[in-house]
């Protein structure tokens, strides 16, 4: 898949489909623009007119609460008109093809699609097929990528740790099924952190995971040492087709984050989780709700980062 599809002829963001292929300068620019949107919460009228008169369609072929609502709020705060479609209530369940759905929405003069789909590459496919003035944002495709989640995580890390260059980051849990982890690893390496570690049982790691630019550990007690940022992943029970784990309680015993385990990391380490949390499966409530947790900051930052990405993708609309 060519990721140049994401940039227009001037090197500006056109579609946001994956972190892969995006230069460090562009990722930094997204974080900088998002910074200014955070301040907007001081305004009585929490809106800027950047996308006034534009129509954004949230196309969610897969369930989501946080991602869909923050995309919707972000679009509204940019003054766009938003249509959120959940596919269970649309014509695709009557057999209409994806492309027909897109063509019909195009005929309604929309400007942007925000797409979540269970099939990897769905957002790429729509970006390739759609009219040239339309931008496509990937809100999660299969096990491939969830780039806006990765960017809001980068934003949250930068907000607290300021600089990426000396950070050691541990990503813990179900790396195999996680599009979030894949996008995070790409973003962290592009932004130049000191080390990305993945900590998981062998059955929840993709083959050749080291080729993504990470160090691998199968032991939480060892892997958490000297870590600045602890990113927990949700155990994706719905994606597990074969028995990859003995049991949830066994998993918690080995890879669940507890207060004691967290003490192995640096004392000022922060704990992140993309949500939704399985309390008592991958993370203990005391940690999720504890002083080192920034899980709710991530949610708030999701609005600002999605505003930045949508505004940047819509600038100079129509330049291919």
């Amino acid at each position: 898949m060519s990721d140049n599809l994401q940039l227009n002829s001037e090197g500006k963001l056109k579609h946001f489909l994956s972190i892969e292929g995006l230069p460090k300068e562009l990722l930094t620019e997204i974080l900088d623009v998002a910074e200014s949107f955070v301040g907007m919460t001081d305004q009585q009228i929490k809106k800027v007119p950047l996308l006034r008169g534009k129509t954004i369609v949230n196309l969610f072929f897969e369930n989501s609460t946080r991602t869909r609502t923050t995309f919707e709020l972000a679009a509204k705060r940019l003054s766009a008109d938003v249509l959120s479609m959940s596919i269970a209530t649309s014509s695709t369940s009557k057999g209409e093809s994806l492309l027909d759905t897109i063509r019909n929405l195009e005929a309604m003069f929309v400007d942007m699609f925000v797409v979540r789909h269970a099939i990897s590459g769905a957002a790429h496919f729509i970006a390739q097929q759609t009219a040239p003035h339309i931008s496509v944002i990937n809100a999660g495709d299969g096990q491939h990528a969830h780039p806006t989640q990765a960017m809001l995580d980068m934003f949250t890390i930068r907000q607290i740790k300021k600089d990426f260059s000396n950070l050691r980051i541990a990503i813990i849990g179900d790396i195999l099924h996680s599009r979030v982890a894949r996008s995070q690893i790409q973003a962290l390496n592009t932004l130049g952190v000191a080390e990305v570690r993945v900590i998981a049982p062998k059955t929840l790691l993709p083959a050749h995971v080291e080729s993504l630019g990470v160090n691998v550990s199968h032991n939480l007690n060892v892997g958490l040492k000297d870590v600045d940022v602890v990113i927990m992943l949700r155990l994706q029970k719905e994606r597990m087709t074969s028995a990859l784990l003995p049991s949830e309680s066994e998993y918690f015993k080995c890879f669940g984050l507890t207060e004691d385990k967290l003490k192995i990391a640096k004392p000022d380490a922060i704990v992140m989780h993309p949500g939704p949390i399985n309390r008592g499966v991958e993370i203990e409530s005391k940690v999720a709700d504890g002083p080192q947790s920034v899980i709710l900051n991530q949610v708030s930052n999701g609005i600002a980062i999605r505003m930045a990405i949508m505004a940047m993708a819509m600038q100079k609309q129509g330049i291919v």
Partner: protein
Amino acid sequence: MLEIPRLLNQLEAELKQTIIDRRLSNPLMIGIRTGGVWVAEQMYQRLHISDPLGLLDISFYRDDFSQIGVNPNVRPSQLPARVDGRDIILIDDVFYTGRTIRAALNEIFDYGRPNQVVLGVLIERDGRQIPLSPDCVGASITLNVGQRIKLTGPDPLAIEIQTLTVAA
């Protein structure tokens, strides 16, 4: 002719008179980034304003977004306290088409409903495109077609007049 100290003195004098004429009480001063903030910092001292200086970044309110895109150097606006019911002195470096001021007013009104807004600029040049004009100016000038005026700074403040050459 365009000496910075003289321009600053003139703007200060006009602002002082306007504060009296318009009966501004405890005014809030806001500078427009970047050049307007430099001028506002000077006026803020000279007029002994008590509330912290407000900084306005109008990038998200510009009317040419679809042509030029998001300014990558955008920074958060910092408006102190509440603007509801306040008397505001808005400061920019150069008044030209009026579009910057329109954007600035739109942004300020998203923070609340001020009582009055007075506009002070260091230099007013010809080329107005919308029915807005400054209340207080350091100097008014007319430039030739193709000439641009720019304030550089902050230390020292200086005025640069550039003649744009049209690419062949």
